[in-house]
């Protein structure tokens, strides 16, 4: 995002706060593109579109909290990061189903980027947490299978997943905004 682009977005948001639908529609269109890029680097591809839409709705509902006297970018990045952390937490609560062996994949770029980012994040956890999250959340094993492979009891696998994801959310929460 260029500086003049951010200024333009701030001006459009200020106009939207005054009820200018045209400026708002243009702003949302550009934010959607920005958010797609933002989440593609941070979430599994299947979750990107949902995260973008959720964030756009949050931006809409909380548009009164943007102060037009201040830069737009930090506000946008904060909202996007909040929704990202929310997604990570939700991933921790969701039940993981095994994926079928034959699943069509069109483009690997975003998967590779997400995988690299996830690998760096996961490497900062304890080994037992890394194992549990890799097997159950990334490789699609059931808790029982992960238990048999790691030697951890099923409840310990669950605890390690829960604590690991919580730790990941905390790491992400402390990271500075970028993009």
């Amino acid at each position: 995002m260029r500086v003049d682009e951010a200024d333009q977005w701030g001006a459009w948001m200020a106009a939207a706060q005054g009820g200018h639908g045209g400026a708002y529609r243009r702003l949302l269109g550009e934010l959607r593109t920005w958010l797609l890029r933002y989440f593609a680097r941070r979430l599994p591809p299947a979750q990107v579109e949902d995260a973008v839409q959720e964030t756009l709705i949050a931006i809409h509902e909380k548009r009164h909290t943007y102060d037009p006297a201040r830069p737009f970018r930090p506000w946008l990045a904060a909202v996007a990061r909040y929704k990202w952390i929310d997604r990570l937490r939700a991933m921790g609560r969701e039940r993981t189903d095994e994926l079928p062996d034959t699943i069509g994949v069109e483009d690997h770029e975003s998967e590779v980027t997400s995988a690299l980012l996830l690998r760096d994040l996961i490497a900062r956890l304890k080994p037992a947490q890394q194992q549990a999250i890799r097997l159950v959340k990334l490789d699609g094993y059931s808790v029982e299978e992960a238990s048999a492979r790691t030697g951890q009891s099923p409840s310990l696998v669950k605890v390690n997943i829960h604590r690991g994801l919580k730790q990941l959310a905390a790491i992400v929460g402390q990271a500075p905004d970028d993009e």
Partner: protein
Amino acid sequence: MTSETLLDELASGLTPVRLRSARRDGMVLGALALVELALFLMLGLQRPDMGHAMAEPSFWWKLATLGLLAAVAIATAVRSFDPSVAPHRGLRWAAWLAGSALLIGWGIDATHHATAPLLARLEWRAGVSCLVSMVLLSLPMLIALTVLMRRGAPAHRSESALAAGLGAAAWGAFVFFFRCGHDDPLYIVFWYGLGCVLTALAGRALLPLITRW
């Protein structure tokens, strides 16, 4: 729903919004605080020996600590209802303030030459009554902060909730301070500390649940 449809829906029928202002929120809370304190004093609930108490160092220690803690925590909470403002620095200040207050209290206690046993100095029956009063007096501020937090967009909900809980707790204790006739630093640290911790933890536990966005 496709993104394009969503964008059209969001942009259609857009109405002007009233901008959130941390300054206005602060003024609302300040007015609420003044009204609560004025009502409390107008009802004649202040301690009868106020003049005598003012000569004690513990009076000013309590006044300054609770007032500053309430101001710092409430300001931290209100600022953090803006998604781009994190409450961590404010919370560190509040922790530093609380730690300093404990040290000063320990210093005052050392010059107090109390002879009674520790448990007797805590005066359990009066302490529980103080605790309940403090928590009740913190409720108006806690409710107001919850309303403002729901209208805002705190990106660090748990920490904002903790700041709000702590601010409301310190304010409740500040109001009650005008009523409380106990000047023993040990009593104050224990019961006021417990009251603040309980309310702050309640805020930390409950507010994130009702301010999700």
